[in-house]
């Protein structure tokens, strides 16, 4: 069998999570690398063990969990949704009501994580299932606008429900990552404080990263399993040809409602994790921009594949950091004297009011975009570029590289 990697003799071996030995080994190695990143022992990747990089990687994990939810709804069931941020918000605020500290103006029950995390997924799924019957009445572009409306209405609800959300611009504290059986003083496992695990000194960032990595792996396995079971195949049949699916006995409305509920469950848990991870969230955060971010993750990564979703999440979340580093580098070459590179970056960087350039390193009114704006523009341009030139996203690029090496040195 070893020489016939695509030969499957049983159905179950073809439908396995990782059907080939290559995939099994690659996944194991990759997971191993991800696990030992915070210990800084990998040559060349040691910088990832820094706390700010671990924070970015943790954020990738949270966004990947949320994006896996949208992957189920948009990638598998083919329903265009711009309302993902609303469900993320529902989950986040369920978590904070159940797990957060109460105060004179805020509600909070201070329950442990094993209650608020599953509950945030459940409540979001419930809200999704309630909204879905109305949403599935409309199709295509109408659905996109309805879900867009959902984000705006949701943002207003979050801003108005001050007792739950802390109100506009203020926001409120979210429960920290700490495992308690009930409301005891010292948590059994505290992920939000530095300390040693099994004799290894670990920062809170490293602990949080490992915890979120575990959640992400569980989410990936769940999403993959949804994809290869009856309901997942129903989703895909609706995406590909809804009338044919209905004729074959796939319940159209019911499947779409389930897709909405499952997708919202992932979104809700991602919201709860995001709140706990960032510590404080404002209601304005659950805006159209967040929804767009999730859609961008899907489209840049490659619509309809789990690995594409993960690639997209990593790309979209890490990109701002790279842009920031790159502009910092440009600015420092401008400052550090003369030479060819300094002249080149001088064209791009604006260092003062009189100096035109695309990027400005000064705050305020100097010409040129600031780093944040440059980020947004690049992000939009990348989306346009991917949509026009590589509709399959990063996953499509990977497929092409793989196919090239499969036949190497021949081109066919």
């Amino acid at each position: 069998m070893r020489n016939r990697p695509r030969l499957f003799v049983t159905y179950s071996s073809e439908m396995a999570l990782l059907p080939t030995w290559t995939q099994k080994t690659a996944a194991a190695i990759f997971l191993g690398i991800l696990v030992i990143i915070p210990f800084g022992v990998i040559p060349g990747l040691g910088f990832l063990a820094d706390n700010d990089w671990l924070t970015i990687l943790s954020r990738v994990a949270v966004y990947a969990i949320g994006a896996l939810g949208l992957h189920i709804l948009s990638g598998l069931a083919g329903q265009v949704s711009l309302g993902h941020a609303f469900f993320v918000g529902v989950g986040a605020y369920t978590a904070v009501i159940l797990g957060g500290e109460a105060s004179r103006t805020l509600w909070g029950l201070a329950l442990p994580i094993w209650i608020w995390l599953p509950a945030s997924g459940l409540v979001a799924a419930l809200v999704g299932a309630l909204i879905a019957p109305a949403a599935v009445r409309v199709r295509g572009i109408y659905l996109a606008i309805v879900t867009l409306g959902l984000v705006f209405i949701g943002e207003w609800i979050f801003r108005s429900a001050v007792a739950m959300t802390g109100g506009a611009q203020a926001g409120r504290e979210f429960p920290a990552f700490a495992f308690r059986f009930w409301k005891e003083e010292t948590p059994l496992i505290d992920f939000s404080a530095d300390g040693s695990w099994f004799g290894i000194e670990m920062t809170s960032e490293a602990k949080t990263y490992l915890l979120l990595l575990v959640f992400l792996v569980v989410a990936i396995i769940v999403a993959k399993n949804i994809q290869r079971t009856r309901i997942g195949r129903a989703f895909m049949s609706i995406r590909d040809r809804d009338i044919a699916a209905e004729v074959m006995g796939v319940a159209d409305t019911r499947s779409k409602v389930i897709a909405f509920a499952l997708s919202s469950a992932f979104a809700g848990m991602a919201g709860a994790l995001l709140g706990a991870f960032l510590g404080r969230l404002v209601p304005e955060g659950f805006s159209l921009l967040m929804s767009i971010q999730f859609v961008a993750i899907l489209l840049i990564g490659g619509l309809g594949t789990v690995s594409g979703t993960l690639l997209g999440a990593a790309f979209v979340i890490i990109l701002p950091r790279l842009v920031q580093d790159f502009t910092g580098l440009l600015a420092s070459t401008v400052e550090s004297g003369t030479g060819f590179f300094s002249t080149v970056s001088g064209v791009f960087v604006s260092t003062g009011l009189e100096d035109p350039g695309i990027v400005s390193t000064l705050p305020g009114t100097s010409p040129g975009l600031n780093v944040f704006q440059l980020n947004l523009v690049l992000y939009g341009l990348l989306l346009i570029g991917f949509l026009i030139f590589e509709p399959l996203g990063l996953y499509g690029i990977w497929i092409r590289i793989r196919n090239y090496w499969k036949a190497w040195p021949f081109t066919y």
Partner: protein
Amino acid sequence: MIVEAVMFAQAGGQDAAEKFANATSSGIALGAIYALLALGLVLIYKATQVLNFAHGAIAALGAFFAAYLATVVNFPGRYVSFLPITLQWILSALVAVLITAVIGLVLERLAIRPMIGEPLFSVVMITIALDIVIRTITDDLIGTTPRPLGDPWGAGHLAIGPISPAKTEVATLIVTILTLIGIALFFRSRYGVAMRATAFDQEAAMAQGISAGRVFAMAWAIGAGLAALAGIFSSVYPRSALGVSGTTAFFAFRALPAIVIGGLDSITGAVLGGFIVGLAETFAGVYLTGATWSFLGVGFAGVMPYIVMLVVLLIRPYGLFGTEEIRRV
């Protein structure tokens, strides 16, 4: 809600009637702006099957051009300084609309044309990506503070019987009516017929020798021009006293409920939907305030259009005038 307002007006006497009349007039003026935006969106949608989520960003860009031309470079005012100030400003606004229309052409050619026939999700996303890019660049051009448009009417009000509309509101309404007449005449012209034919059946139109590409370009140019017009009127006094700012782009998202209410592919529906949304938003802002309605929180008027949209969609999934999609096996 209108019925409720009427009852309220009868109970309250003259003051309430005046309040109602003023709310109606400013609602119609706001609706006129939404109608302009919705008209552009529907024109683009009918011709190219693309819903332009970047409409708001284009509107803000157009308003920025108007502000820049009128207040910074004084173009074309500096060459025609013998004309009255009002006319000079109108000329600057027209030039801004033309520039924005050209930008619409360029956008269509660069980003939209390659996407014809792609799946819906990609087409939606490309206009959203355009929105991000244009909005960010416009924000940067505007700067940290809003830019005044330098319109000649300022904060002046007229007094027509019981109502006292702002001068800009009257101007908005006049411009909208003129635009609607212009669009109606355009549809009777040679190019308008070509556009209608393409929207009706693209293949048949191409078989008759109509260049579909030219129709697409025309639709985007007109749509972007209308967006700029709406952007200009949404950045002057009662809407935004300080001028065009980052929020102008978000304003146009409320035109999406307008076209959904009217039906995505109906011009009449778009205009009517615009006025419905404008009136609903204004009435919500005027009547749903005070202690009784404090539980609604701030900014309820802003989400009113979306709520109206959801209600209409629950009753008629294709809007008031939209053609129902026929599903064939």
